[in-house]
């Protein structure tokens, strides 16, 4: 109902009222404390009614008196935490990945060029990966990486103007689970929304699947999932259930898992 009202007059709406609702590109959201009072520009400093900085996440831009929506999806908000004054973002079902600094992704090595590897991560450009960015790698002790290998790594450089760069070590030089993924297993692609759902803490989907078989799972923020169970059959079952999760409700999923358990 509210949606209709906004669409009809094309005016801005308070951001808080739209949390959890569908927002469309071009919509303007007003921020609390700045609601069209005197049309003054948004103050970022801490002297406003909100403590800390308000962060404007994916799918939103600053403009006018508040935020402008650039993507279609559900508006989300996380309240003020330590040091930040809350985050607004748009949660959308997307397929194409755009590299973001700090994201953990699964890439495929496509070329070896001197001292760097080229890794396909599904973005608009291939990421580069230095051979020194592996745990324990030195100039003499090169990591064993071949073209076609799967890499689980993290972005340290990712912005629109530069080639993205990956590493397979954390800031203290430890692998921390990153590196080349073993030879067997199965890699498939799902939407970015499903990945975010799976990576959420205490994800029910993973817990349900855990009842089936023991399996290894690697989730890349770029929509790639790698699974390995004891047998190929079990691997495929897990992969198929995960792939189908996108269009299933919780009850449907539980039914599917129960059916698989019976057999």
């Amino acid at each position, binding site marked *: 109902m509210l949606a209709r009202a906004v669409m009809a007059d094309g005016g801005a709406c308070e951001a808080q009222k739209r949390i959890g609702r569908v927002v469309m*590109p*071009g919509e303007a959201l007003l921020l609390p404390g700045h609601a069209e009072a005197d049309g003054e520009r948004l103050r970022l400093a801490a002297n406003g009614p909100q403590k800390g900085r308000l962060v404007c996440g994916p799918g939103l831009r600053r403009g006018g008196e508040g935020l402008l929506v650039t993507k279609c999806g559900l508006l989300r908000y996380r309240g003020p935490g330590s040091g930040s004054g809350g985050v607004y973002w748009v949660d959308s*079902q997307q397929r*194409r990945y755009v590299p973001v600094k700090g994201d953990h992704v699964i890439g495929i090595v496509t070329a070896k060029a001197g001292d760097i590897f080229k890794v396909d991560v599904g973005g608009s450009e291939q990421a580069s990966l230095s051979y020194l960015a592996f745990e324990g790698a030195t100039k003499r002790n090169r990591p064993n990486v071949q073209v076609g290998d799967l890499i689980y790594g993290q972005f340290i450089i990712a912005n*629109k*103007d530069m080639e993205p760069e990956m590493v397979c070590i954390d800031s203290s030089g430890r692998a921390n689970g990153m590196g080349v993924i073993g030879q067997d297993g199965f890699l498939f692609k799902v939407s970015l929304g499903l990945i975010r759902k799976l990576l959420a803490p205490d994800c029910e989907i993973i817990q349900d699947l855990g009842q089936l078989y023991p399996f290894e799972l690697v989730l890349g923020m770029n929509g790639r999932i790698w699974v390995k169970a004891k047998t190929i059959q079990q691997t495929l079952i897990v992969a198929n259930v995960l792939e189908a999760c996108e269009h299933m409700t919780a009850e449907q999923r539980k039914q599917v898992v129960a059916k698989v358990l019976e057999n």
Partner: protein
Amino acid sequence: MRKRYGEARGWIGAMETEQKKCDSGDLPSLRRIVCEQGLLSRPDGSASWMQGDTSVLAGVYGPSEVKVSKEIYDKATLEVMLRPKVGLPGVYERSREQMIKKTCEAVVLGTLHPRSSITIVLQVITDAGSLLASCLNAACMGLMDAGLPMGSLFCGVTCALDADGNFTLDPTAKQEKEAQTVLTFAIDSIEKKVLMSSMKGTCSVEQLQQCVAASQRAADTIFQFYRDSACRKYSKW
């Protein structure tokens, strides 16, 4: 507001009920709209758009890698491909491609993805009038499904003017053929401004303004449809 048919038309040859002519005071009436998003698995975004018996399928790819020759250093390269129902695209399709491309460029925030390409492929499935408008709508739905950053939404509306000066919104192929003038406008969602206009035939300034006004009112209906279909898409999520 939308025309409803008693039964689904299974075959393409069926003639549609003609669109009602309207005066400037009437509420705009459009043919029945049906849309499905994300139906194709390979593209990053897809949409099928049906407006009466006219049907267009859109596939959107991007932001993806771009050929060096087509690379633009500060914004995304936008490409539109319009495929006719049969045969290869010709001069007519090329000119329509350009119109759709310019409209999309005005709306898509290409600067957020420099040195990448955004490709929109439009496949005509049935042409039963108002094809350019349907293509524009399909392209917008496809872009929305792909999650590409956009400053606003846009839609396409076609008007047909007959010799007596009466105009019809969203005309069928037969009405388009009989009309003296056929006008198509692309309208943005924020201020309902005209992004693109195409005109075949002659008309007076007053008639043009009348058509723009009617199209702007019809655009509201289409934007409301966009919103409803997005709400439905995310309701299951």
